[in-house]
C-alpha cells in the first residue's frame, strides 16, 4: 500500500508547521519527508524523487527562489510554496520561476489538500493531452477540441483573443497563473507590460460566462497575483 502512496517533501524550518503537515498529510495517504533547510531539501528532492514539494519561502539558509531554480534544473515536479502575507511580489516571483501554486500562511488544511490534488493531477496529465479537452462544470461547457463554449446550453460567441485567454486558463484549470504567464501565452512576450489588457479581457470573459461578473464562479481573481480557473 505505502509503495504507491504519493511522496511529498516538506521544506520548512518551523518544527510545529512540519509536524502539523506530516501528521495531517500522512492521514490523507501521503508519504511525507521533511527537510529543515533549503540545502537539505534539494538533496532530499534529488534522492527521493518526490511527487510534490511543499516549500516555505522564508528559509534560514537560502532563498526559497534558489531552491525552486535548483529543482527546476532537473525536474518538473509540482512545487507549492508557502509565503507570508503582503508578499505578493514573492508569490509572483516564485510562480514565474516555475512554482505551481502558493498558499499564504496561515492556511487551512482543506485548502492545502485541494492545492495538492490540483497540482498532482496536472503533473500526471500528459502535456497537451487529449482526454481533458472537454470541461463541464454546472452550466458551463467548454470544448477545446471543437472550440465551442456554451453557458446553460446556449453557445457563447467569443473573439479570438477571448477564446485564446479562456483556453489558456482552462488548460491550467485549478492552478493559479500570474499576469505575466497569461500575457506571455496569450499575447506573446512583447506584451508583458500590459497587464491591463488582460484585465479588460478577463472582464469581457466574465460578462459572457458568469451569471454575476462581480461574484464569479469560474474565473477567479488571485488578488495582486493573477487568475485561477476554478474547476
Amino acid at each position, binding site marked *: 500500500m505505502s509503495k504507491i502512496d504519493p511522496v511529498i517533501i516538506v521544506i520548512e524550518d518551523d518544527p510545529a508547521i512540519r509536524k502539523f503537515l506530516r501528521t495531517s498529510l500522512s492521514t490523507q495517504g501521503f508519504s511525507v519527508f521533511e527537510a529543515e533547510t533549503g540545502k537539505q531539501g534539494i538533496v532530499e528532492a534529488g534522492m527521493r524523487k518526490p511527487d510534490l514539494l511543499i516549500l516555505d519561502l522564508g528559509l534560514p539558509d537560502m532563498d526559497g527562489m534558489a531552491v525552486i531554480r535548483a529543482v527546476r534544473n532537473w525536474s518538473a515536479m509540482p512545487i507549492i510554496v508557502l509565503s507570508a502575507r503582503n508578499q*505578493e511580489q514573492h508569490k509572483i516571483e516564485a510562480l514565474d520561476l516555475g512554482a505551481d501554486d502558493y498558499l499564504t500562511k496561515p492556511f487551512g488544511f482543506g485548502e492545502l489538500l485541494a492545492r495538492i490534488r490540483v497540482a498532482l493531477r496536472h503533473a500526471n496529465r500528459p502535456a497537451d493531452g487529449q482526454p481533458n479537452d472537454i470541461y463541464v462544470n454546472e452550466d458551463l461547457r467548454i470544448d477545446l477540441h471543437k472550440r465551442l463554449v456554451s453557458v446553460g446550453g446556449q453557445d457563447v460567441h467569443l473573439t479570438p483573443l477571448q477564446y485564446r485567454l479562456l483556453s489558456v486558463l482552462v488548460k491550467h484549470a485549478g492552478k493559479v497563473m500570474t499576469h505575466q504567464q497569461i500575457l506571455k501565452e496569450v499575447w506573446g512576450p512583447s506584451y508583458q507590460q500590459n497587464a491591463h489588457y488582460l484585465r479588460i479581457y478577463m472582464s469581457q470573459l466574465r460578462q459572457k460566462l458568469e451569471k454575476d461578473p462581480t461574484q464569479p464562479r469560474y474565473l477567479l481573481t488571485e488578488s*495582486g497575483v493573477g487568475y485561477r480557473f476554478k474547476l
Partner: protein
Amino acid sequence: MPSKQPNPGRFAFSETDPIDLVRGQSQPAPTGSAMPAQTKIPLDLDSNRQGYSGYVWAIVVTAVIAVSGHTLYGRLELSNIVMVFLLGVVFIATRYGRGPSIFASIFGVAVFDLFFVDPYLSLSPANSQYLITLAAMLIVAVVISNLMANVRSQARVAASRERFATALYAMSKDLAASRSEDDIVSVAVSHLAEEFGGQAAILFPNPAGELCYPALSPAPESLRSADLGLAQWAFRHKRAAGCGTAQQTEAPAVYFPLHDKDSVFGVLALQSAQPQRPFPPEQYKLLDTMLRQISQALVRNRLAEQAKLTQMQVETERLRNALLSAISHDLRTPLATIIGSATALADDEGHLQAADKLELSRAIADEAIRMSNLVNNLLDMARLESGTPELDRQWYPIEEIIGSVLTRQHKALDDRSVKVRMPPGIPMLYADVVMIEQVLTNLLENAIRHSPDGSELEIRVETSHSRANIAIADRGPGIPAGLEDKLFEKFYQTQREAAQSGVGLGLAICRAIVELHGGRIGARNRPDGGAVFEFGLPLEQAPPVLVPEEPVE
C-alpha cells in the same frame, strides 16, 4: 571692543560676539564714548560736499547785504547796518554750518569796515573798535552753526532710525507670520536683499554638522555661490567671516553665525550688490538687529517644533497604551477559547463524543482565524504608519476588485445576498489593488458584523466629478449620531469590549489606505434604516488605450 580700534570702513569683530562691535552705534548722540570713528565719516563727507556752495552763498549774501545796506547808508545808524550783517551770518550759519558762517563773519566785518566806516576802502586801525563787532559775529556764527549741526545730525539720526524701524517692523511682522523654518529663511533672505541690495542665504548644518544649502527652491535673491568652507569657519568659531572682517576679508560675501545664548544653529551669508565692497558702516546697526531678529525667529520656531514633537510623543504614548490594553484584551479572549478547547482535546481520556471533539476543534479554528485577522490588522496599521508605504498601482476594473473580495468573503457572507449595483462603462481604477481590496474587505466585514444575520447588503458603484465612489450599505442599527467621523479613528469601538469586536483598527486602516490613494472615506445613515460606508477614489485622467480587436468573421 575698545581694545581693537576699528579701521574706518572695515570691521574687526570681537572674539566673543561678532555683532557686538556695531552695538556701540545704538547710542543716539554722536558723543558716545564707545562711538568709533565710522559714523563721523559720513558727517564730514556731508559738510565737505555742501561746503563749497556754502562759501559762495556766504559771499553772495554778504554782498547783497552790503549793496542794500549801502543804498540805505546815511538813513540808518551804523549799528543797525551791523545788525543786518549779523542777520546774514545767522542765515549762513543755519543753512551751511560752521565754516561758511565764520567766513561770512570775517568777510562781513571786512566789507563793513571797507565800505561803511570812514576812512572808506581802508582797514584803518582807528576802526579797531569794530573788532568787537567781529568777535560778536564770530561767536554768534559758531554757536548757531554748532546748534544747527546738532539739530541736523539729530534729524538725520531720527530719519535713519525711522527707516531702520520701518524695515525692522516689516521684517518682524513677516517673521512673526512665518510658520516654518523655510518660511523664516525666505522672509529673512528677501528682506535682507531688499534692505542691502544684494543676495543672501541662510545655511543650516546637516546632521553631521556640515553646513549645506537648504533644500528650498532658491528665490532670485538667494545667494547660491556661498563659500561653504568660510561659512563653516564662521559656524565653528562663532565669529563673522568674509568680506570686511578679520577672516578672509577679500571674500565677496560676509558670513554671520546665527546663534542664541548657547549654540550656533546656522550661518547667514550676505553679499552686497557690489561684490568686494563692504557694507557702509551705518547699515551695520540695522544688519545687527535684523540678524538678532532672524535668530530669535529661528529659535522660536525650533522651540515650537520641539513642543509639537513632545506633544506627538505624548500622543504616541497614549496610543501605545490604548493599543496595549486593546490587544491584551482582544488577544486573550480568543486565546482563552483556544487553550481551553485544545487542552480539553489533548487531555481527553476517551470521554468526548465525536460531536464534542468537532465542536471543540471548530471553536479553536474560529478563534484562531479571529486572532489571525487581528494580527493582520495590527501589522497593516503598523505598515501604513511606518512612513509612506509604496503603492503598487495598476489599472483594475472595479468589478474585478469587488468580485475578488466577494469570493474571498464567501464563507463570512454565509448565503447573505449582496446586491451589486454598478452602471456599465465605469472606467478602470488606477490603484494598489491589494490595498483597495483590503478596504472593501474591512467595510464588508464591518457591515456583516453590524447587521442582523441574513439581512441584505448592497454595494453601489457610481462615478461623479472624476471620482469613483464605492458604497457599502447594510440594514443594521446604523451609526449613532455624531460618531460618523470618530468611527475612523484608531482603536475606536462603538460597543466597548463587545464580544465580536476587533481592536477598532479596520476602519482606521480603510481611511489610511483611501487617503494614501488621494481619496476620501465617510459614513452616514440611510434614510430608510442602516448605515452606508462610502469611499471615493480619484479617476486618473488617462485610462489605458486598448487596440480594438478585429471582429470575429
